[in-house]
């Protein structure tokens, strides 16, 4: 597969998550709630999670944002659901490295998330992709 086609595939994955977001919505009262906005654009995310026995049981997001931020939120919720908190943190770190164009730990399977790799080439959009992850980290930290 040529590099260009790979790019196109990644774009398809992103658009799929944007148009058919997974875990869209809001959890009932009593769950972890984080509201965060991306200062560069004013876009925002409303993330709700439930954590039980050190595991992320449920995660849902809502918000108003660009395709990259919403697709990233969709992928993020999908990725952390059922994982333990430590793994979620670890994934956020890997994702951050990926966005900065750094080498990252490839032991953990990122699945669809890899489609966002290309974003690192667009500095203006890195904050879009990391918004949901930052929200997730903030929520889990506050819960500690």
């Amino acid at each position, binding site marked *: 597969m040529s590099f260009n086609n790979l790019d196109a595939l990644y774009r398809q994955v992103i658009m799929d998550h944007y148009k058919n977001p997974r875990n869209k919505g809001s959890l009932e009262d009593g769950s972890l709630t984080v509201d965060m906005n991306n200062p560069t654009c004013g876009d925002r995310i409303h993330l709700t999670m439930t954590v039980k026995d050190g595991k992320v049981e449920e995660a849902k997001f809502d918000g108003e944002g*660009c395709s990259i931020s919403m697709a990233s939120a969709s992928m993020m919720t999908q990725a952390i659901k059922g994982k333990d908190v430590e793994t979620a943190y670890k994934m956020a770190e890997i994702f951050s490295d990926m966005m900065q164009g750094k080498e990252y730990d490839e032991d953990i399977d990122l699945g669809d998330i890899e489609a966002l790799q290309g974003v690192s080439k667009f500095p*203006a959009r890195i904050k879009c992709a990391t918004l949901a992850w930052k929200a997730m980290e903030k929520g889990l930290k506050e819960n500690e």
Partner: protein
Amino acid sequence: MERIYLDHAATSPVHPQVAEKMVKLLNEQYGNPSSIHSFGREARQILDSARTLLAKSINASFNEIIFTSGGTEADNMAIIGAAHAAKDKGMHIITSSIEHHAVLHACHALESEGFQVTYLPVDEKGLVNPEVVRQALTDETTVVSIMYGNNEVGTIQPIAEIADILKEHQAVFHTDAVQAYGIENLDVKQIGVDLLSVSSHKINGPKGIGFLYAREGVKVKPRMHGGEQEKKRRAGTENVSSIGAFAEAVKIAEETKEERREKYLGFKKKFIEILTQHEVYFVVNGFVDEALPHVLNLSFAGTDVEAMLVNLDLSGVAASSGSACTAGSIEPSHVLVAMFGNDSDRLRNSIRFSFGLNNTEEQIEMAAEKTAAIVNRLAKQ
């Protein structure tokens, strides 16, 4: 009632020093720069020193500045002039779908002459992807025109990246910098464009004057025929007093740029903060931070742009639905359509606030309070 002008992207008040310069020139310098007598020579000097100053402001050289009657003429001259000059090399033009009408309609005129034009899409933040420019290029492409900063949503394009892609290609690269000039740092050598349009009335200079930067060696066919002014590239008696006043505006803009950038960005944040405090539901069209500092375009769900503008106007706040040229009409902005598609609510509920000279923090606060009150009233209905 104090009126608050938040439509500086449509046009801006003339700086008092600029008006002073203008009236001084009008009263004292009436020669024709083409005349060889002393009156003419004095007028020529004013032109020369203005041209030197403008050239320096974008790191260009003296002969690369062509005075025009404004941004529209600069855009028309760049695109049609460059396309006509390179007709033997091809008849394909690339531009984006969020350009100002001065660019888009110049492209339509070329289409009616048989040119082919590709209008590149943008993402929902109004960004053109440089890779998409690369893919659109053909052997027939002669002109690429992508604006520097958008007048409706403020999005700044990756011009240097696109210039890089075009380095090895025959096409000349034009950027409409009408909104960016005077507030962004533009260095034509660094950003690597061949043609760049500027208008005076957006930076507190007089209306009816602007310039086109045309890199040495880049061919642009003249569109105004007559005398040999502007090295035969643009005929017509030079508008000496406006050019001198324009130069004064540029001088002031350069000196105050950093301070204004910070101030306007602060205004944006303040505006957003106040709306948030009042629990107004809004979304930013484009970016807040990495955009033109003076442009803030907001979508207010549940409102209608016309009701909004009328209510704002009645409460003394002058804002706009986007580009002034289409503000009189109810047609949705082509920029918002390109960003959000034809069906988005945002096409009918977005307002552009743009900041500039004389705006104070108090004005911004008051305008935001009034906006919040109007939205909360209208959205409830």
